[in-house]
């Protein structure tokens, strides 16, 4: 573990060179411990694949005190509950209609569309990071057989709820936006709703399962085509 300066009022903690479920669990434990022991002086925490950005309040503390407290919080993760987060199931209407890139992924992998859908559902994913846009959760890791590089030309408009793959990551687009990921289906669950509490159904560290639903179920759950 390595603590580096990020800015005048922030540190970045590097937990490992690469990401893994174990690293993610360790970061979650660190987040919990930092909130419990340093809460008042912390402004924001940004957990990601293998790092944690810690932003502190320069009017309440300083670089030296925070580094010391951070070291203590990070050295004492054993007793902290690092259980693998909540298990959240997200429904997906997988089809060529809802996922225009399914055919290409299947063709490239030498699989049928049904097999691609099956493989995407089999995996339990972990929320490694949230960013890019409000509610955009990076989930990993996608089975290598259906991993797909980003599109050479990103789409101008990816619909809200689009379930997508980029390399070994998958995600659900929380809002209409441009995007270069491969689209394989649509999820009727809102990934970010500012008017609802909580505004997101998932948090970093949670485990995600996708479950295929029919077109009718998708529409009944508020999905739009």
């Amino acid at each position, binding site marked *: 573990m390595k603590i580096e300066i990020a800015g*005048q009022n922030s540190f970045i903690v590097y937990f490992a060179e690469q990401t893994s479920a174990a690293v993610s669990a360790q970061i979650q434990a660190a987040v919990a411990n930092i909130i419990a022991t340093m809460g008042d002086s912390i402004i924001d925490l940004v*957990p990601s694949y293998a790092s944690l950005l810690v932003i502190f309040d320069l009017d309440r503390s300083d670089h030296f005190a925070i580094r010391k407290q951070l070291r203590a919080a990070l050295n004492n993760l054993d007793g902290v509950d690092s259980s693998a987060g909540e298990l959240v199931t997200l429904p997906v209407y997988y089809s060529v209609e809802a996922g225009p890139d399914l055919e290409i992924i299947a063709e490239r992998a030498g699989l049928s569309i049904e097999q691609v859908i099956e493989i995407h559902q089999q995996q339990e994913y972990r929320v490694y990071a949230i960013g890019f846009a409000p509610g955009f959760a990076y989930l990993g890791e996608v089975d290598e057989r259906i991993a797909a590089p980003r599109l050479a030309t990103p789409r101008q408009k990816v619909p809200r709820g689009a379930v997508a793959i980029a390399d070994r990551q998958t995600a659900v687009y929380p809002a209409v936006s441009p995007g270069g990921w491969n689209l394989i289906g649509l999820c009727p669950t809102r990934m970010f709703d500012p008017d609802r509490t909580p505004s997101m159904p998932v948090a970093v560290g949670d485990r995600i399962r996708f479950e295929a639903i029919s077109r009718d179920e998708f529409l009944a759950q508020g999905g739009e085509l």
Partner: protein
Amino acid sequence: MSGFLVQQPGLLSLLLDRGRYGAHNLGLTTGGPLDFVAFDWANRLLGNDANATCLEISFGGLALDAEIDCSFVITGAEAPCKLNGDAIPQWQTLDIQAGDRLEIGFATYGTRAYLAVKGGFDIAPSFGSTATVVREKIGGLHGDKLQAGDRLPCSGGTTTDKRRLAAGDRPHYGDFARLRVVPGYQQSAFDPTQQWRFYNSEYSLTERCDRMGFRLEGETVHSNMVGMLSEGICHGAIQIPADGQPIVLMNDRQTIGGYPKIGSVIPLDTSKLAQLTAGSKLRFEAISIEQAHNIHCLEQARFQRCSLQAC
């Protein structure tokens, strides 16, 4: 609720407080004033709460009609300001009456002006802040920049305690800034030659600047990073993409990203950066974390002790 009616919204006018903190876990960025210094003076000149909601007017072109009597202050970029067609000074408490028109023309020095009203604009916070972030459709009136016909609610009220910030205490906006940097993040991935180039070259501000990031042009700098995992980005971080041209990440930056960073500009100096126009020149200067803390504390003390002139 009455307040001000927007006749002309200007190019980019945003309602904002000091920013949205504690919501990075949802992927929400900070937002808030690009120039914290001018923003803070605007509220202080009115005796407002330090986090009261103001209007940030980028470049200018704003016209508002008052529906109430109210004290106000305009700080930041130097721009022709008019009350019912008559020129009015900036950096000083003034009164406006119901039926009056307030205009802030296009900036002549600097780029961001701040309009504060007594008690602040009355905006419902979302995720703990009123800061408008257009990209996220969050904050302000409807998550968007001002539009003609918008009504900016405020309860108004005038103050007899009229104050002015002495000319010598005001910031000066020119076409050059020295940005102090706390080295950090992937700084060790930039070898000494690259660091030397970065800290000893003059950069120009390009046209490609927005509230997410300010792109610079000059000597290219390269790191020896090969592939990197996305990680949290703090305010002022200097990202060096593959083309070697630095980008200073500002208030509306994405919260995570995967480009190497050489360090972060201190907020006092991102405020200076925010007031520059395209073509302005910049230099970077590495400072220690101790120096950065000293600068912060001295600036706080100066802000608190600086006495305002009665007028």
